């Protein structure tokens, strides 16, 4: 078998490894233009803040190490221009074409930047790729910066703000939204987190859509301005789906693309032999039953792994996941699980200003959203329980072992009873 993997991040790496486990002799061709080993976008801010060294951005090791272990060919000399799905061919920019038995599209996602006047600019930065991190760090090391604006009250935005603050830079986080982590946090939780972050010295500007970048300022759509020596744009990401976009063929015959490439539980696209995994594709959101871009490192790993095994003939299933995230900033751990817009019965534990706070929304005794400030152990178990409830027809008890660990981590029995939907 000849396998092609286009894009070599978390999903691509996991796929290569899985293929090699299933098929010791197959030919694996990896197409990755950067020539770098798989990097984790989440580590960029840690590198830029000097929490880790450069090599640590590549969690699976150097290319040489990986290649020695999993035996594949890496092609950084050519650029893939298009994936011809039906014929399972890669079309390169130099015009050459190569065909494969199985193709995995694992092209990831890129930072999203809306049209902004004055962008790009030498003092406007993104934070997605290793190159972005190097660029920001190099700039900050060389240039005195007094004031900064981070556009985007996202998980990346807050990390960037933290690293700027740690360098003594006056930092404002601006967002069109009304509060922090608008897709994960309940409003009161977001306000508490904002309060904590504010007390460390970061300011916030809400209802601010960025319109332009000037010499020493950022301009917003409401006509206001903020002083800024640098601007960091952490607005969001977009899936890299262009390689499979079937511009030339009639609709319905190419790879189905929504906001990301649509795949099933086997990581198959709508075209036979073509798979997709990671941030470029949509997986199943178990909460809604619909596909969506999930954008999590672990998810990319599972998807890549599943795709790899299946490309080599196995029959693996990755059911999908629920939206969940843990964000670690300024010694605060915030965990969001599920849909923060869900409406239902609300249960809370703890003082929102205390070391452990849990707030959950339930519908008919089933969890729909959980926010936690403080304990990742509680987060892990509640996420597991969330999934258990989703997979059980009837409402489910928390297994004894998990109940005990929750209690060990400070949750009282009566609150756990409530999380179970008052089953007792």
């Amino acid at each position, binding site marked *: 078998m000849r396998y092609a993997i286009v894009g070599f991040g978390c999903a691509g790496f996991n796929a290569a490894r899985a293929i090699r486990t299933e098929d010791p002799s197959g030919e694996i061709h990896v197409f990755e233009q950067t020539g770098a080993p798989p990097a984790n976008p989440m580590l960029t801010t840690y590198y830029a803040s000097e929490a880790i060294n450069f090599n*640590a951005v590549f969690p699976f090791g150097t290319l040489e190490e990986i290649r020695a272990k999993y035996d594949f060919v890496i092609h950084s000399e050519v650029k893939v221009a298009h994936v011809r799905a039906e014929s399972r061919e890669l079309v390169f920019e130099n015009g050459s074409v190569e065909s494969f038995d199985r193709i995995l599209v694992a092209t990831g996602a890129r930072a999203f930047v809306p049209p902004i006047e004055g962008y790009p600019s030498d003092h406007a930065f993104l934070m997605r790729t290793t190159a972005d991190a190097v660029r920001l760090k190099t700039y900050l090391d060389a240039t005195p910066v007094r004031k900064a604006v981070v556009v985007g009250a996202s998980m990346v935005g807050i990390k960037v703000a933290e690293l700027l603050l740690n360098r003594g830079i006056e930092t404002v986080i601006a967002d069109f939204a009304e509060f922090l982590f608008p897709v994960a946090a309940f409003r009161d939780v977001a306000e508490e987190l904002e309060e904590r972050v504010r007390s460390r010295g970061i300011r916030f500007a809400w209802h601010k859509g960025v319109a332009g970048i000037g010499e020493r300022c950022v301009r917003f759509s409401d006509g206001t301005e903020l002083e800024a020596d640098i601007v960091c744009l952490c607005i969001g990401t977009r899936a890299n789906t262009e390689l499979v976009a079937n511009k030339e063929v009639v609709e319905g015959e190419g790879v189905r693309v929504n906001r990301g490439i649509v795949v099933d539980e086997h990581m198959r696209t709508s075209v036979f032999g073509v798979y997709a995994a990671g941030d470029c594709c949509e997986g199943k959101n178990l909460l809604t039953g619909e596909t969506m871009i999930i954008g999590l490192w672990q998810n990319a790993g599972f998807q890549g792994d599943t795709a790899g095994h299946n490309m080599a003939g196995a029959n693996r299933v990755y059911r999908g996941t629920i939206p969940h995230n*843990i964000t*670690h900033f300024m010694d605060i751990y915030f965990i969001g699980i599920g849909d923060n817009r869900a409406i239902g019965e609300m249960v809370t534990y703890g003082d929102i200003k205390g070391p452990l706070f849990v707030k959950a929304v339930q519908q008919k005794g089933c969890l729909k959203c959980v926010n936690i400030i403080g304990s990742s*152990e509680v987060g892990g178990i509640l996420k*597991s329980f969330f*999934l258990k409830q989703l997979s059980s027809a009837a409402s489910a008890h928390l297994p004894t*072992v998990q109940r005990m660990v929750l209690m060990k981590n400070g949750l009282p029995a009566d609150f756990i009873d409530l999380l179970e939907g008052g089953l007792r």
Partner: protein
Amino acid sequence: MKYIFDLNTENCVGCGACSVACMDQNDTDTERGEKPFRVVSTLEQGYRGETRWSYISVACMHCEDAPCIKACPCGCLFKDEETNFTIYDNTNCIGCHSCAMACPFGAPRFNEEGKMVKCDGCNDRVKAGLKPACVKACPFDALKMYSEDEYKQAHPARGIHDIVQQLLRQE
């Protein structure tokens, strides 16, 4: 040889010997707020007018397809190819707690530097032919380590390993 940890919940009484043995093996400094990798717990629950007691000893379950391994953004967690224990090298750990968020059993711990530490199954001891510290101590024959073959033969009743497998399948 692959190994499996199991807890016979019929025999466990939550005495804590395993937990202290773990702390002794791993130099856990409780006075500085460090938590043992293995914890014990007694749970008393009312159920239809009757009270039921459960006793459990919990640490890393060394899951077959361990979710923490995939969740770690830094590649700190991996399987020992010989023992199948989930082990780690926390040199590059950034303290993000993604592993804890992925773990259904609250197993990861974080040291004073904020880096992840956890039960490694006493991997080096096991490779040297010794038992894990907790298994060695367990005075009630509740906590055991089996080779895969032994486990199949023993079919331990009321073991926690089965419960764990079931939980992981749901994820």
